[in-house]
C-alpha cells in the first residue's frame, strides 16, 4: 500500500522563512543610577545594542527590527522612523542596511536626549514602553498579508530599578504579551529586576542580569540572539528561581502574605473594611468565638 508521509521536512523549511520581529526597548533615562554615576556608559550600551540589532538583521533576510527609547516621561520609536533615508550611502565596508540602522538610531536618540527636560526622575516608564511595543506588534499582525507568519519578541535593556508603582501596568502588559505569543526578554544592566523577571517567566522569555557591563555585547549575542525555537536547541542559563511576590495596591510594597479582596482579587498589605478597587464592604473579622467548655461526661 502506498502511504503518503506527512510533510515534516517541508514544515521545517517553512519555519525558517517566517519573519521574526525584534523590538528593542532601550532605557535611555538619564536619571538611572548607573548613568548618573558615569554618563559615558550610555554610549557603550547604545553601541552594543546597535550591533546586536544589526546581528539580528544579519540572521535572515526577512528579519525585522524596531528600536524604542524609553524615558521618564515618554517612550518613542527611534527606528524605523517615518523619514526618507534614500541618501544614506556606505561610508566603509559595512552593509548598507546596517549603516542605515546605526545612523538613524543615533540621530533619533540624540534628539530624544536633547529634548528631555532637566528634571532628574529615576523611574523609567518601562511598562508603557512595552505596551507601545505590543501595540506596534498588534498593528503589524493585523496588516500583514494573508498567510504570512510573524514571530515577535521584545527585548528590554535597562539599568533602572524596578518600580513597584507600575505593578498593575506591568502585569497587564505581561499577560497581554502572553496572550499574543510575544516573548519578553529582559537584559538588566545594573540592578536585579524583580517584576520584569516575572514577566520573562510568564512569557517564556529569558532574564539576564549582566555581570560585567564591559562584555554587554557578548552577553547579548549569547543569550538573546537565538530565536525562541533555536533556544531549545542550545544550552542557555537556566531560569533562576522567580520571586513571585506581588505588590500591594495600597502602599506598592512587595509582600509575601496579605489580604485579597474576594470580589476583585485586589491585594492589600493591611486589612481595610472597604475594598478601594471595587468598593465592596467587608465585615470586621469577628473575634475568635469563645467555645463553651464542654463538661466532661462522667
Amino acid at each position, binding site marked *: 500500500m*502506498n502511504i*503518503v508521509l506527512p*510533510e515534516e521536512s*517541508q514544515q521545517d*523549511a*517553512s519555519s*525558517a*522563512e*517566517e*519573519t521574526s520581529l525584534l523590538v528593542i526597548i532601550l532605557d535611555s533615562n538619564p536619571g538611572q543610577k548607573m548613568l548618573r554615576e558615569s554618563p559615558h556608559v550610555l554610549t557603550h550600551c547604545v553601541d552594543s545594542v546597535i*550591533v546586536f540589532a*544589526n*546581528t539580528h538583521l*544579519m*540572521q*535572515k*533576510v*526577512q528579519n*525585522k527590527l524596531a528600536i524604542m527609547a524609553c524615558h521618564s516621561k515618554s517612550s518613542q520609536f527611534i527606528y524605523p522612523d517615518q523619514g526618507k533615508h*534614500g541618501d544614506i*550611502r*556606505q*561610508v*566603509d*565596508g*559595512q*552593509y*548598507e*542596511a*546596517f*549603516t542605515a540602522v*546605526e545612523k538613524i538610531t543615533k540621530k533619533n536618540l540624540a534628539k530624544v536626549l536633547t529634548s528631555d527636560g532637566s528634571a532628574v526622575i529615576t523611574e523609567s516608564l518601562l511598562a508603557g514602553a512595552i505596551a507601545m511595543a505590543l501595540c506596534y506588534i498588534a498593528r*503589524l499582525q493585523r496588516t*500583514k*498579508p*494573508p*498567510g*504570512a*507568519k*510573524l514571530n515577535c519578541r521584545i527585548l528590554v535593556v535597562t539599568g533602572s530599578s524596578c518600580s513597584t508603582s507600575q505593578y498593575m501596568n506591568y502585569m497587564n502588559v505581561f499577560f497581554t504579551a502572553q496572550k499574543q505569543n510575544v516573548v519578553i526578554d529582559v537584559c538588566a544592566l545594573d540592578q536585579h529586576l524583580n517584576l520584569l523577571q516575572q514577566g520573562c517567566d510568564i512569557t517564556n522569555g529569558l532574564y539576564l542580569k549582566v555581570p560585567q557591563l564591559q562584555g554587554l*555585547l*557578548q552577553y547579548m*549575542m*549569547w543569550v538573546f*540572539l*537565538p*530565536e525562541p525555537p*533555536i533556544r*531549545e*536547541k*542550545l*544550552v542557555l542559563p537556566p531560569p533562576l528561581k522567580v520571586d513571585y511576590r506581588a505588590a500591594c495596591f495600597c502602599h506598592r510594597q512587595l509582600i509575601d502574605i496579605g489580604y485579597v479582596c474576594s470580589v476583585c482579587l485586589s491585594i492589600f498589605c493591611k486589612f481595610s473594611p472597604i475594598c478601594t478597587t471595587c468598593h465592596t464592604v467587608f465585615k470586621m473579622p469577628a473575634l475568635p468565638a469563645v467555645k463553651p467548655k464542654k463538661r466532661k461526661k462522667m
Partner: protein
Amino acid sequence: MADNAGNSNAQKQNRSKSTNLECKNLYDYLKSRPSNLLEKLYNHPTICLAVYRELPDLAKQYVIRMVFVEQPVPQAVVASWGSQIYSKEHNNASKVLSDLMLWQEAAIPGGLLGWIISPTFKKNIKIALLGGGKTWSMSSALEADSKARDVAFLDTYSQERWECVLHYMVGSQQQEGISADAVRILLHAGLMKRDEEDGTLVITRQGFQFLLLDRQAQVWHFILQYLDTVQERDLDLVECLTFLFQLSFSTLGKDYSTEGMGPGLLVFLQHLREFGLVYQRKRKAGRFYPTRLALNITNNTNKSTPDIEDDHPKGYIIVETNYRVYAYTDSNLQVALVTLFTELIYRFPNLVVGVITRDSVRQALRGGITADQIIGFLKQHVHPRMLESEAKSPLPPTVVDQIKLWELERNRLDYKEGVLYSQFLSQIDFNVLKEYTESNGVLIWFNKEKRTLVINKAAHDDVKRFWKKYSKGS
C-alpha cells in the same frame, strides 16, 4: 550448482536520477569549489554576509559566539553549547562549518583540539557588521538622478525581461528573441537542446522543471550556469560573484554608480541587464538600478509563506477540492505552465479553467516533472484568497495527497541487481546457502520448492568463496 548471472536492470534508477534538475543552493555551490577559491572569496565582506545567511541556524549561533574570540575554542566546549537531544543538528552544523572552511581545527596548549574561525572570514564579517575597510565597489557618491525610476517601474521592467527568456524557452511567438549569449547559457544548462533533425532549439525535461521553479530559484539556477561559463569569457569569477552579492544586498529603488568598475565587470553588468537583474537607461549612463530579481539572490528555498512586505507579485491560481484549477491570468506563459499538468476546460480572456486528472498528472510525471514540483508550483502561485483560510496548507490536502499517490503509483517496482543461484543438488545444500546469505542480509528472493535463490550482486564473490569452502569440506 550453476550460478546464472542474471542481470536485473538498474537502468531505470539511472534514468530518473540523471534527468532531474539539480538545483544547488549556495552551500552546495561553494562546497564544490576549491579551497583556495573559497579563501579568496572570503576576502569580500559581501560574500561573507551571504555565506553567513545560508548557514544552518545553529551554525550561525556558533559563528557569532566565536567571531569576537581571538583564541581557539576547545571542541568539547563547542559541543556543550547544544543540548543533548539535538546533537544531530549540532553535528550537521559543525560539518557545514568545516566544509565551507569557516572554521579550522587548531591545537590548544594542553593537548586539546579546538576550533578557530578562519581569520579572513572573521575579519570580513566584522567589517560587514561593524564597519571599517573599503566601501563596496558600486557605492560611489552619485548626484540625484533626474529621471529616477520607482519600484513599480523596476518591477515591470525586470518581469518583462525575465519572461522574455522564459517565453523563448516555451517557444511562444509573441516575444522577440533573446541574445545569442543567453541561448548559449540555456544550452549549457541543458534546459534546451538542439533537435537532432532540423537543428531548432527545443525545451528539455529539465527545462520544464526549471519553468515550474519559483522566480528566485530560476534566477539563481540560471546565474549559476552563467558563472560556469564565466572563465571562457575572460571574466574573473571572484569579481563577478562579489558584484552579484553586492547587488543582492542593495536596496530596491536606489541607484548605484558604475564608477570604478573594470571592463570585465561592465560586460557582466550588461549581461545582468539583459536578464533584467539590473536596469540601466543607457549603456553609458554611469548608474544602474538593481531590480527585485537581483535582491536576495541566494534566498532560494521554495517559498511557502509570503513575505511580510506586501509588494510581491500576487498569486493567481485557485485549486478546489474537486480538482478544478482556476488560473486568473492572461499570460500565455502562465497558461502554458498550468497546462503542463492539467486538462484545460474553458478559456476566457482573463481566466483559464482546468481540471487535474490522473492522466494529465501522469503525463506530466512522464515528462520528468515530479509531484513535489507540481505541488510547489501550485503553492507558490496560489491566489491570496486561498491563503486567508485558517488551514495549515493553502492547497486542499486531498489534491496534494492524490498527486503524490499518482506519483507513487509509478514507482511500484523496486529494481535491484542480483545473481540467481539454481539447480542445487540437495535440499541441504540449498538450506546452507540460504541461511548463510540470509544471515548476511544479501538474500533478495528464494523459492524452496524450486531450490533457487537470488542474492545481491555485490555479494556474489563472497558467497562463491563460501560455497567453494563448503563443498570442499562436505
